């Protein structure tokens, strides 16, 4: 399908035309920017660097109920599937992250909670024309206008958005509001490409990850892990807000006689994550836990699924309270190899 163009002042009408689906867009909720349902007034501002919370929480909520039961009962009532959703303004790194995580939730045995939500979302991306400070997506195979995982890529042309439908799902969405979208001209496409190239040039942080997947295990006893772990507080924010981190805990909660089994984000940086009931912990200190975090993203995940479990969004760098910097860690690892 050819590229299309939407006048910026028609964005509201475009959202209204998707009325059969719930539209989520980046919004300020308290101190954080996250994907939230667009309100009745349909006001959406796509003027943001990136969301604090990645859109992974739409398909993999921080806490979700798996099923309900009653104390002493034998009936297990599974949570019903959700509604169709459109995510508007997803950054290309976060869309790539969903493709990465899809591997995990669909290998061997399908995870019905994740996949039900995942199949029901349409991802409308927004190219990053002003990449934030700690972005390094090109180093891990992405780019500010990467289309991987997206159904539509939007580019801000100033007074209009260029729409590039990428999948049948994306084309369908464009058809819902066909009267609002004008065919884009060759000059629009050329302008977008130019903006994409300029954006990539603005990314200053980089690291060469070639050879890490094979090499990392050889640094098992390296001092690097001690150095990384020394300032680490084990707060887990780098994993909670990582768009590819997918580890979870399962817990039962009771309220009176009503019970629910739920799952919630967990983090390999928490002591309890691997703690055996006996008191034995195979990863007893933050050294082992940070080593696992890096090995999992850049070696184990690559071994298993052929892709790196990092998309270079920079959140873990921006949000770490003690300035632990994954690009620095990877550079040190690379040097040590």
């Amino acid at each position: 399908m050819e590229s299309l163009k939407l006048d910026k002042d028609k964005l509201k009408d475009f959202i209204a035309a998707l009325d059969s689906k719930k539209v989520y867009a980046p919004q300020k909720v308290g101190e954080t920017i996250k994907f939230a349902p667009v309100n009745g007034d349909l006001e959406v501002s796509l003027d943001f660097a990136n969301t604090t919370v990645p859109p992974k929480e739409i398909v993999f909520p921080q806490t979700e109920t798996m099923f309900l039961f009653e104390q002493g009962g034998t009936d297990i009532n599974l949570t019903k599937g959700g509604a169709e959703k459109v995510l508007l303004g997803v950054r290309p790194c976060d869309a790539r992250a969903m493709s990465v995580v899809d591997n995990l939730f669909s290998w061997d045995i399908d995870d019905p909670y994740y996949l039900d939500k995942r199949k029901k979302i349409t991802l409308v991306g927004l190219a990053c024309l002003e990449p934030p400070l700690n972005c390094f997506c090109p180093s891990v195979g992405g780019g500010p206008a990467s289309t991987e995982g997206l159904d539509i890529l939007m580019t801000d042309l100033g007074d209009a958005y260029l729409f590039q439908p990428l999948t049948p799902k994306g084309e369908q969405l464009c058809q819902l509001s066909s009267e609002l979208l004008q065919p884009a001209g060759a000059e629009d496409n050329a302008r977008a490409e130019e903006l994409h190239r300029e954006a990539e040039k603005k990314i200053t942080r980089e690291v060469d990850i070639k050879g890490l997947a094979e090499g990392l295990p050889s640094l098992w006893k390296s001092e690097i892990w001690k150095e990384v772990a020394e300032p680490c507080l084990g707060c887990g924010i780098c994993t909670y807000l990582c768009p590819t981190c997918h580890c979870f805990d399962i817990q039962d909660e009771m309220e009176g006689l009503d019970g629910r089994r739920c799952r919630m984000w967990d983090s390999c940086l928490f002591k309890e994550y691997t703690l055996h009931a006996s008191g034995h912990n195979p990863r007893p200190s933050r050294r082992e836990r940070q080593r696992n975090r890096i090995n999992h993203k850049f070696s184990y995940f690559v071994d298993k699924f052929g892709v790196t479990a990092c998309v270079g969004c920079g959140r873990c760098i921006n949000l770490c309270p003690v300035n632990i910097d994954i690009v620095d860690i990877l550079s040190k690892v690379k040097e040590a190899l």
Partner: protein
Amino acid sequence: MNEKVNPYKPYMATVQEAWYETTGDRCIKTLKVLFDDEEVRENWSHLPGQCTMIGVLGVGESMISISCSPTEGKFLRFSVMRMGKVTQAIHQLEPGDKLTVRGPYGNNFPVEEWKGKRIVTIGGGIGQAPLRPIIEYVKANRSDYEGLTVIYGARTSADLCFKNELKDLRNCDGVSCHLSIDIEEEGWPHYVGFVPSLLMEVNPSPENTIAVTCGPPIMIKFVLQNLKKLNFADEQIYTTLENRMKCGIGKCGRCNVGNLYVCKDGPVFSYATLKNVPEAFA
């Protein structure tokens, strides 16, 4: 969501029999359970070494090895050490009580591949639970195996599981059983010392033999060293790993040792695989 394909939805089962194997702080209780749904019971199949998530609704689930062989019947058996919140709740279950079961998970001891060989099991404490299905499987298919040597030890005689069954083993043709306790006890007629030393005492030949060991990490470490001294090749040595688990299906992340998931790639590993995994014996 399709109920049939939700891997997190457990089956309901009922405790048929329950008894204590050992007493004390970390006592071990065995439960014999039957699935409530006849279709589930009929369609269920497992092999020695596999595990299940068993649990109590409202408390949670734990990954526990199935301690019976499929050759024993349509029931499942679990021998559970009381350790944390979930195993505490499991210990409170009596005949007629409900528990949840999902699985079976993980790989299995390659008992079919091992046909024609002698099997040596080397267990310590609760580590005998995952070894028990091998013993029962070999007993049920006795003519398919050259023989069976059971080596098993615990801290004291009161800490030994499956005592009566072990006594009966001595009457089985081609089966030998060697027991040990760590500290001298009055009236104890068998070996006194640690399991790795008992292994050297029994001195099994590696010829056409498979050695399988389960127990505390420190015991496994020395058993592996001693098996090497006895000239067992890496490929002839098997063990199981355990780690904290939540999903059982390779999603929740926590059970990995290096690039292997214990819940999917294990719990059974040959030493040939594990010796290259740096985290395996952490």
